[in-house]
């Protein structure tokens, strides 16, 4: 459990982070979202003490981060940033193994861990281990950057706009990968983004920052249906609101028995996908498949009912 306790950071005279408190459960993804200058990156950097707090403290599993030397603390916390920040003069293997090396792991153990992570990110170890970052595509560089953050199996991983430099298609895949890997490993992740779409897609909880203050910390559904301030409502967007809400609900939740025609959707898809399919092809229901077998359908009426529940 990560407890951020009334933390404040003052630069010159500006309050970059102003009395923020929040508690983050182990094994969840918390997304801090805000516009530029909202203090979201500073808040993240206060957690691993890349910035020192003016007042307040952060506790990880009950222990204050101020009780540990900063560089020792940082080796226990994964860190991934926008534009990957890989070392250009080191191979992929050395980049991923950077933290284990700092921690003094044996060579064999590091090599095994590097291969394991490359496999996890669907990059064949024999092919990629010895390449340099400049020999990778943008998406691959970003995956190596995340793999480096995971390498020492840290309790906590901090990510600062990790997908910011990727094009939309690769970004969506990277987000899915991160979700999958986080669920497999049970890691705790705090991720900073300016993109509300990303926050809703990835976050178990979303924390909205504005002018250095934490204005709302809640589940994505609550952020959409009950925004705490006008600013949060603006971030979600009036027009986008119903669609974003639908995107949070998997098809399985409103599935019913019955016939439906046309191209099916997999059960992992969400209601927004189903609505889109209905509108585009003029259907009032879409069939749902699981491992290639049709298991039910979702109707337009069910989708509409779901979008109206908050009202």
């Amino acid at each position, binding site marked *: 459990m990560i407890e951020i306790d009334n933390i404040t950071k003052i630069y010159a005279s500006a309050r970059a982070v102003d009395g923020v408190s929040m508690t983050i459960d182990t094994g969840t993804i918390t997304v801090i979202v805000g516009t530029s200058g909202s203090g979201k990156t500073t808040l993240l950097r206060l957690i691993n003490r890349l910035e020192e707090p003016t007042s307040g403290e952060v506790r990880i599993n009950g222990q204050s981060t101020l009780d540990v030397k900063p*560089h020792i603390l940082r080796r226990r916390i994964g860190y991934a940033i926008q*534009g*990957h920040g890989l070392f*250009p003069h080191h191979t992929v293997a050395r980049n991923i193994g950077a933290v284990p090396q700092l921690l003094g792991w044996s060579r064999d153990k590091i090599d095994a861990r590097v291969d394991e992570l490359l496999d996890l990110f669907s990059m064949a170890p024999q092919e990629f281990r010895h390449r340099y970052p400049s020999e990778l595509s943008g998406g691959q560089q970003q995956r190596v950057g995340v793999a480096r953050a995971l390498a020492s199996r840290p309790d906590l991983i*901090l990510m600062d706009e990790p997908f910011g430099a990727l094009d939309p298609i690769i970004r969506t895949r990277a987000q899915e990968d991160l979700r999958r890997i986080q669920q497999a490993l049970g890691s705790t992740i705090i991720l900073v983004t300016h993109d509300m779409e990303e926050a809703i897609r990835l976050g178990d909880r979303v924390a909205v920052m504005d002018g250095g203050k934490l204005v709302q910390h809640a589940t994505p559904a609550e952020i959409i249906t009950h925004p705490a301030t006008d600013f949060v409502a603006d971030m979600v967007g009036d027009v986008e609101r119903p669609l974003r809400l639908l995107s949070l609900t998997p098809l399985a939740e409103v599935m019913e028995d019955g016939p439906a025609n046309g191209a099916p959707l997999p059960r992992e898809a969400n209601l927004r996908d189903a609505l889109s399919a209905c509108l585009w092809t003029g259907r009032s229901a879409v069939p749902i498949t699981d491992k290639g077998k049709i298991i039910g359908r979702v109707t337009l009426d069910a989708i509409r009912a779901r979008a109206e529940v908050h009202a």
Partner: protein
Amino acid sequence: MLAPFMTLAANRIVAGDAVPIWAVVPVSQMIPGLAAIVAGLALGLPARHVGLRLAGPLVGLAGLLWLLVQGAPALLEGAGDYARVSPAAGFWCLLVIFALLMADAITAMKPGPFQRALLLTAVLGALSVVLGSGALAPLSVMQEFAARRDAFASEATRHLWLAFGSLGMAGLIGFPIGVLSHRKPALRSAILPVLSFLQTIPSLAMFGLMIPLLGWVGATVPGARSIGIAGIGFAPAFVALVLYSLLPVVGNTVAGLAATPPQALNAARGIGMTAAQRLWRVELPIGLPVILTGLRIVLVQNIGLAVIAGLIGGGGFGTFVFQGLNQTATDLILLGALPTVALALTAAIVMDILVDLTRRLPKETP
């Protein structure tokens, strides 16, 4: 080719008479040499094929050497005991032309660092074979050398000490200053202008300034004189060279360390590297080519500047240059100048190879 190929003088001081290329040796000996030169130019100048462009100048150089080796004793024959022969404008021009052609051909072949090291060894080897064979002994420069064989060895050692010693000292002083300046922008903006100012002092003035300065130190600081610090000699020359070297060393260290992408540096801090680890594992390896380029500048510059040290009794090849100037003996000047040029060229090529080797590690393909 119409310019005088060699000169023949009655002794080592007076100006010589020009001898055109066709009069250097009897016709029978001239034809193969001249043919080789013409062939060399014909092959080397227009050829598309890189191999030919390299082979042409080699043939031409062989022709030049042949005429020189044959011509020197032939001209000296019956010209008196004190007579001297030297290569003249025609020879030097052709030499430069062939050297340029060869350099151009080698550049076009894009040799890797190891091939360049091999080429350099081959050239130096060939040079030492030609000089060691004694075939050039009749030439005036070589006679000056023969008269000063021992002095040449000791001045050469002295020259190397001046150039490499000042480089080492500048590295020892400049590198830490560079690292500190990189860390503290305030220090950087204070130090670099001072070093730039030092660089603008004309070299003669700098060496001159050292005389009263170190003379005073030698006279007042106890023990200074006993370790050789005095107004003239090795110490002031050494100090002047170190001062000249500081700007390239500090400047390139700062530039090299700044070459690390900010994101990589942010990540290095974020994953828990200490300041020392960031320097040694990230900033230094990435900046090494730039830092080595600075050392290359210093080395080549100091090999040249060390000649001036001869003026204040610092020793080195400059001793011959200034003796030669005083005696108006051109060939004695050459005895000082030619090895300096060769040394500087060799040093530049070796350092370039080192820079390339350090740059190679991260391949720069997208």
